[in-house]
């Protein structure tokens, strides 16, 4: 055993390795990505790891491995589970031979997601057991226990951390490599009665699953991570209890230790719910406050139990408006919720049912006393997406258009002044939306923007659909040769795998031509005139046509030196600032300047300046499409901000 300072996601990865995991597959998505990356970095020689093309592919690859008796883990974020749900729902009816942990990171807030969906609910829906860790140390141990339960009961299990557990760091105790248990497994044994899903098998296995979950609920009542903390003497006669789980538990226990400990029930397995232990907790209580994020899962379980057992306990939480029903809990919001519950007569605090009562007392929403500028995330200085959006915007000026966006850094193209994302729904959806709008509004020029990684993950079927169904649209591929938003993971177009192999790149242009597109143009977006011409010539052609804007993410290339404004030539029209919104273009004492610590020398501002006032120290012309570039050593480019090219204050860590 030794101590390491680990991110929750890293702890989960090391826990899986310690448990003898044989295969890990996944698709990147905040806040889950570091789990698979850490497995790849720290793996022992006999572990296979891959970034699959999407979550469905990852789930199926892992299922195959689990059929052989190998231990496997699949990683994704909560919306990725929607993509993987088709194989998973059926897999639960088939079951697994080797232990299988489905790591799904939920994102209360949401901090960087489309939805606030709760994987604990998905556990109930899909009938999978669910483990809910509250800190990195617990996540490290829990993943190992989850493998044991999975094998014992022959079912995939969810491990469902939330953002603050995934991205929280702690100094934790982990096993040395010599303590890892190597595992042998039998291999796949043919048995059509077991591995081939048919209605009859599903019916028989459904009966077994229901019986198993009853047994598992009893087992979970004895699981040491489901725990009742007794009240201190002072709080005992109050007959008030608190139930919590996940990160909210850490907020709750810290406040309770300050206020005086009340009876506290920590639920680490929300499904199947440890009913027996819950009844023990409820015994003698009159009021219970449920502190949880996302859906009122614990609250509903307790309400159900009270009803079934005719217990005179009032259950408060999201459903009663005592805890806010959307967004992230904070140390302060939980503190205030508990303060109200214990200090006021909770019975007199009437919940409004929509969370407003809780919101007004939440000190964490009190703004800082001085009016502060909003600082939303923006496309980086020099980002090629800015140039691509700008070229399309300028080329289509005055026309009736719709720009369907997608998931990735380029969603940030929605911000002013670009304002180039009219819709965004989920991975790959932009293509279908552009088609649907086009069928209803034939006079609208419909565009779908999709990144290279998203193209492979979920846009190809959309292209096939468009070609087959005679859509009229322009597909814009923003190819920056990486999965930028989630921390620069490789994908089928990059020619690298997570096992470190250099493989044949899958060429996007060839894929599109293979599907039947005859118009596929490739252009360097940082060559403004060429891009403008390309869009103008392509957009009005009939049918489905594509433009690939190809230029690497600035985080993967060395900046070519800062541009500068020649103050003698600058007319002060501010066109560059008004139209590009580049963070390196700033106003200083009323004049346009370029922040040399941010500028990468992309020269887009120089190319659009009417007064020719922006110059580069070394006169530079953009290269042809598909310009070769030298990637930085990937080991110096972690998924955090330490190597961000805009880094002005980092320790020299190249």
């Amino acid at each position: 055993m030794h101590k390491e300072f680990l991110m929750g996601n890293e702890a989960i990865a090391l826990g899986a390795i310690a448990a003898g995991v044989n295969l890990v597959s996944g698709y990147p998505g905040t806040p889950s990505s570091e789990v698979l990356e850490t497995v790849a970095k720290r793996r022992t020689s006999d572990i296979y790891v891959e970034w699959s093309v999407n979550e469905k592919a990852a789930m199926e690859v892992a299922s195959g491995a689990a059929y052989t008796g190998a231990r496997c883990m699949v990683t994704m974020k909560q919306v990725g589970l929607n993509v993987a749900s088709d194989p998973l729902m059926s897999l639960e009816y088939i079951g697994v031979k080797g232990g299988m942990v489905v790591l799904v990171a939920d994102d209360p807030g949401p901090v960087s997601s489309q939805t606030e969906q709760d994987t604990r609910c998905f556990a109930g829906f899909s009938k999978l057991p669910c483990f809910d860790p509250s800190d990195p140390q617990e996540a490290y141990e829990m993943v190992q226990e989850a493998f044991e339960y999975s094998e014992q009961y022959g079912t995939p299990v969810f491990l469902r951390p939330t953002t603050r557990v995934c991205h929280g760091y702690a100094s934790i105790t982990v096993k040395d490599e010599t303590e890892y248990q190597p595992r042998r497994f039998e291999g796949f044994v043919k048995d059509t009665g077991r591995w081939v899903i048919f209605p009859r098998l599903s019916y028989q296995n459904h009966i077994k699953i229901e019986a198993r979950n009853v047994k598992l609920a009893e087992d979970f009542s004895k699981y040491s991570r489901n725990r009742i903390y007794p009240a201190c003497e002072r709080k005992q006669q109050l007959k008030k209890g608190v139930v919590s789980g996940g990160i909210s538990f850490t907020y709750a226990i810290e406040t309770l230790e300050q206020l005086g400990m009340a009876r506290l029930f920590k639920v680490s397995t929300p499904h199947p719910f440890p009913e027996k232990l819950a009844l023990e907790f409820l015994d003698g209580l009159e009021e219970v406050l449920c502190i949880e994020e996302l859906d009122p899962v614990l609250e509903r379980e307790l309400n159900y139990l009270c009803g079934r057992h005719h217990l005179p306990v009032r259950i408060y939480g999201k459903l009663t408006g005592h805890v806010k029903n959307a967004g992230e809990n904070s140390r302060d919001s939980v503190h205030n919720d508990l303060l109200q519950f214990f200090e006021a007569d909770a019975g007199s605090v009437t919940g409004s049912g929509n969370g407003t009562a809780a919101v007004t007392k939440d000190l964490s929403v009190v703004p800082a006393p001085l009016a502060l500028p909003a600082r939303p995330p923006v496309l980086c200085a020099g980002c090629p997406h800015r140039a691509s959006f700008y070229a399309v915007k300028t080329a289509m000026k005055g026309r009736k258009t719709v720009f369907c966006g997608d998931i990735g850094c380029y969603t940030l193209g929605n911000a002013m002044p670009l304002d180039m994302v009219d819709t965004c729904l989920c991975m790959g959806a932009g293509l279908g939306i552009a088609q649907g709008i086009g069928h209803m509004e034939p006079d609208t020029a419909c565009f779908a923007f999709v990144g290279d990684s998203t193209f492979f993950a979920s846009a190809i079927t959309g292209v096939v659909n468009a070609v087959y169904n005679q859509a009229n649209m322009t597909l814009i591929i923003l190819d920056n040769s990486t999965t930028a938003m989630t921390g620069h993971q490789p994908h089928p177009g990059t020619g690298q795998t997570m096992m470190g192999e250099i493989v044949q790149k899958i060429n996007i242009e060839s894929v599109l031509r293979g599907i039947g597109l005859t118009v596929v143009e490739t252009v360097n977006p940082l060559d403004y005139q060429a891009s403008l011409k390309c869009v103008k010539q392509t957009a009005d052609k009939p049918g489905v046509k594509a433009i690939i804007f190809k230029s690497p993410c600035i985080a993967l290339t060395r900046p070519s030196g800062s541009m500068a404004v020649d103050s003698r030539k600058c007319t002060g029209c501010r066109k560059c600032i008004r139209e590009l919104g580049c963070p390196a273009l700033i106003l200083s004492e009323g004049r346009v300047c370029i922040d040399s610590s941010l500028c990468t020398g992309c020269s887009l501002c120089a190319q659009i300046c009417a007064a020719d006032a922006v110059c580069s120290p070394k006169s530079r012309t953009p290269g042809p499409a598909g310009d070769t570039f030298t990637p930085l050593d990937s080991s110096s480019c972690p998924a955090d901000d330490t190597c961000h090219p805009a880094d002005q204050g980092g320790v020299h860590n190249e």
Partner: protein
Amino acid sequence: MIPAILQIREVYIMNKNIILCGVGGQGTVLASKLIAAAAMKKDLPVMSAETIGMAQRGGSVFSHIRIGEGLHSPMIAKSTADVILGFEPGEAVRMLPYLKDSGQVIVSSRGIMPVTAALSGTPYQSSEMIRYLKTRTEHLLVIDTDEACRELGSSRVLNMLLLGAAIHSGALGLTDAEIKEVIKERVPEKYHKINFRALEYTHSL
């Protein structure tokens, strides 16, 4: 036996709550990792939480670091931070509600203009932020970053400057030598000298 309430108070005195804040890309993550590593070398339990993901693209970012025994939550409660290291004046103001009474604020004088401010043509005045911090905090240390970077001959040492100032203020409970030791372990040797000079810079003020 010591009453429970006294034990709790003892724990709270020993613990450190530290906030680092700035703009995505400024290097707050690395600075927080150095603090954590130095504390771990002293056998102190450490936890932290930080912004990762979309907000990194030039948005407001923060790290919460907590050092000491008996802690559960990686997030810091309002009015309990011992020290705020502001890599950007406006972001330090944004985090001010977390500062405890008599807490220490160390802030870089260099503002970073948000794109929204440049667009609206109402320039963001970082000097206003500094003025505000002066009226609201007892223990404020403003680092003239531009001056320091000129003197040191590097524009990439902001986090070392702030870290050094925080150490010298006594607010971290760590020493120059302890941070240097972890820098030696984590940063290539050719950069040690410049980082050490930046770390020591506020000593000579």
